């Protein structure tokens, strides 16, 4: 991978939350564990996993909405993992976020115009009158009628609110947008509208996305490459096509089999995995997946598998591959 092509590089990132008992840290929730991945300019990296896999925390750490316990985040050639809130402020122009919940992500006391122009105000972009033009342009771009610029969020439907959130995120022309479950709260027929909008915006402006979701179908559709997370670790990372025919990690395979597909040709009626996710406080030793893996070997219980490149661009963390 050519160095200029890489927009964001996450290197051995760890994010642990202390579990406090009687005021002292008695253990850690290891939300993100030794994660390394890269996002190239203009591409979409899908990050997929079940609840508790650390995908949201990883996303927040990538754009430094949370501190990093260990490891580095290099954005546009600059290590941002140790910068202070104040030092980060100017960089926020280049990295933005779209949230899952179209309700709590918009301030109910602000008009749509104020919401969309907020990043422009913080970043001191445009004059006050130019800002209004810019907001109208953004609303138009995101499929919202600009006449609603003075309306309040509660007057819009979930899908429209999500469009407002998208307009806010792209207002400052960012290079990178973190999409945290952007369509999970929407109805099926609205999901496709929002997904198409995100993809149109990418082809028009060349934004790079990190697209976090638990919905494999959606991630598969939007991403060029996909990282599968399990209990805070990347277990498999590859081009999207690889996941169609060449899924290597047992967890990835189970995850894909578990999704109910519309169609009746090869319906899988058996659940591919048994058991619950282990608690992130006491992670299993060795490979974190060994408690549920159908192929567990003795060494899986003791040795943590490295993320190895088994084919060009295809990384897997499993002893058996």
């Amino acid at each position: 991978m050519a160095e200029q092509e890489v927009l964001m590089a996450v290197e051995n990132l760890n994010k642990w939350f202390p579990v406090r008992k009687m005021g002292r840290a008695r253990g850690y929730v290891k939300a993100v564990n030794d994660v390394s991945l890269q996002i190239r300019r203009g591409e979409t990296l899908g990050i997929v996993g079940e609840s508790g896999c650390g995908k949201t925390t990883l996303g927040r750490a990538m754009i430094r909405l949370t501190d990093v316990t260990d490891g580095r985040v290099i954005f546009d050639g600059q290590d941002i993992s140790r910068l202070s809130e104040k030092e980060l402020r100017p960089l926020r122009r280049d990295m933005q976020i779209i949230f899952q919940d179209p309700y709590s992500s918009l301030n109910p006391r602000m008009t749509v115009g104020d919401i969309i122009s907020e990043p422009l105000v913080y970043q001191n972009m445009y004059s006050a009158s130019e800002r209004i033009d810019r907001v109208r342009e953004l609303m138009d771009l995101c499929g919202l009628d600009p006449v609603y610029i003075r309306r309040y969020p509660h007057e819009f439907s979930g899908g429209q609110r999500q469009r407002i959130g998208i307009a806010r995120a792209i207002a400052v022309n960012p290079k990178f947008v973190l999409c945290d479950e952007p369509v999970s709260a929407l109805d099926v027929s609205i999901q496709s509208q929002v997904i198409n909008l995100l993809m149109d915006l990418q082809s028009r402006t060349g934004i790079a996305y990190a697209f976090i979701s638990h919905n494999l179908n959606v991630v598969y559709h939007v991403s060029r490459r996909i990282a599968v997370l399990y209990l805070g670790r990347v277990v498999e990372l590859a081009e999207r096509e690889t996941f169609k025919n060449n899924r290597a990690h047992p967890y990835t395979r189970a995850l894909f089999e578990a999704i109910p597909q519309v169609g009746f040709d090869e319906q899988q009626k058996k659940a591919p995995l048994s058991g619950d996710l282990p608690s992130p406080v006491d992670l299993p030793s060795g490979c974190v997946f060994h408690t549920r893996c159908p192929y567990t070997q003795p060494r899986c219980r003791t040795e943590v598998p490295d993320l190895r490149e088994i084919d060009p661009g295809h990384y897997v963390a499993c002893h058996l591959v």
Partner: protein
Amino acid sequence: MSIKANANVQDAAYTSFYHDAFVRLKRDKIAIACLVFIVLLILVAIFAPLIAPYPEGFQDTSAILAGPSSKHWLGTDEFGRDILTRIIYGSRISLSVGLIAEAIAVTIGVFLGALAGYYGGKIDAVISRIIEIFASFPHILFAIVIMFVLGTGVINVFLAIGFVGWTGIARIIRAQVMQLKEKEFVEAARASGGSDLKIILRHLIPNCLSTIIVVVTMAIPSDIMYEASLSFLGLGVQPPVSSWGEMISMARKYLRTNPTYSVFPGIALVLTVLAFNLLGDALRDALDPKLKNL
């Protein structure tokens, strides 16, 4: 059912949150009646000299402790003063206690509550303990002790009641700010490079405002009652200034001679408290239904 969420923007009128709330409030007949009553009461208090049938302090020596008559609609007290006149002047004290004492309580409460909620951690721990300490004294008892320290008088009544009432507001604002801080729109503001100050000004304060309005409306009647109680005990407003609590206290000595003397100031007090309580309920339903346990 999420039917309402699907309502089309096209057919919705241009409405802000407060406009919406006002529309909801307008539909509530009781609330409007209370609002009218309170406005009238304020007018009565302001224009007391014009409305009252007698000048304040005027003593009709021909009618001492008289019952209601055409000359004195609500009767007279032990000095022959017209009770209606005294009730009208007494409304000045009650309303200004509601206003000034509550302003003091809100200032302290919002400041400390917001500080604790926004910064959390050690600051929160310290402020929370302080709130707990001050909330450990029964309000009326604490007010009595403060009055003992400051001495009697109208201004001191304001100070005592204001200083007693801040803990409740501080608790609510603290919880509210803590909740707001976790909202994604605050995170969005941080993600766009908003500083603490800007986030507080643009997001936290506007979203707390409705809560503050509700809490204040609901606290005013208790303040009015505390004033009446202090004055009743002889620790608040001192004669000859008229206060409903002080009138009831005096009337107590003449229960046998003029029983209605004690009734009328009480009715004035009950009606005022009732109006504020009901208005507060309606405002809460319209602005902030989460505060249901208030």
